[in-house]
């Protein structure tokens, strides 16, 4: 089950990468980042079967960091929406040009 889980983790990570590259909605970009974090969690848990319980401890830390990141990121999105009335990343050009 270890190899299959690692491959599933790689597939989910690649789906997250594709989402970040393809989509332009800022909230969906955030969701794709969460999916990538989750794929890494899956490989941690799969490896913890063989290596030791520490992998699951790190999964716990990754979850708390993801929660903090989601809270701050969504606050940033709300404040940008208040400024620009959009969450489409093609309209965020204040620092781009």
């Amino acid at each position: 089950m270890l190899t299959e889980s690692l491959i599933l983790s790689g597939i989910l990570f690649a789906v997250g990468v594709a989402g970040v590259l393809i989509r332009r909605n800022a909230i969906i970009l955030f969701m794709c980042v969460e999916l990538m974090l989750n794929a890494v969690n899956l490989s941690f848990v799969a490896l913890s079967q063989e290596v030791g319980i520490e992998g699951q401890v790190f999964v716990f830390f990754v979850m708390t960091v993801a929660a903090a990141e989601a809270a701050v990121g969504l606050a940033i999105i709300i404040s940008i929406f208040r400024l620009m009335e959009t969450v489409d990343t093609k309209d965020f050009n204040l620092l781009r040009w």
Partner: protein
Amino acid sequence: MTFYSLLWWVFAALAFGGGIGMVAGRTPVASLLSLVLTLFSTGVIFILLGAHFIGVVQVIVYAGAIMVLFLFVIMLLNLGHDYQPDLRRAGWIAGASVACGVLAWLIMRTFTHETTLVASGGGMTAAQAVEQHGAVGAVAMPMFNEYVVGFELTSLLLLAAIIGAIVLAKRRI
């Protein structure tokens, strides 16, 4: 094929389908619900892999709390409609090919690099630790012994995130 591996394949397929549905979803709410499906299936896979506590925490915290936060923001900003197509053909091809490259690289590393798994934590595997301390205690023992500094720093991180979110989202302090 045992019952467990059959369940594993079912939930792996659900997780993959949810991920694809999230990337291809037309509205943010549809994407979010697909992501909830993916996270729930991953939680079930955690349980099938023997990480019972982490699987339950995954369902409660991730598929429950964090996703409700996302849904709350989507509803607050009223993003349900006025869909603009952001899936251009060239963008799809470029993004999908980069993702395939990442996937191929990850899988190639998994199979070509000869790595030896070095057991840590006193040489106990996860199953032995669970047998000795129980599902929650197996995670709690290293967390409150070796990683207690990181655990305390996590509380500081959460405090900083709370204050930062309030400062960013509030109109005037």
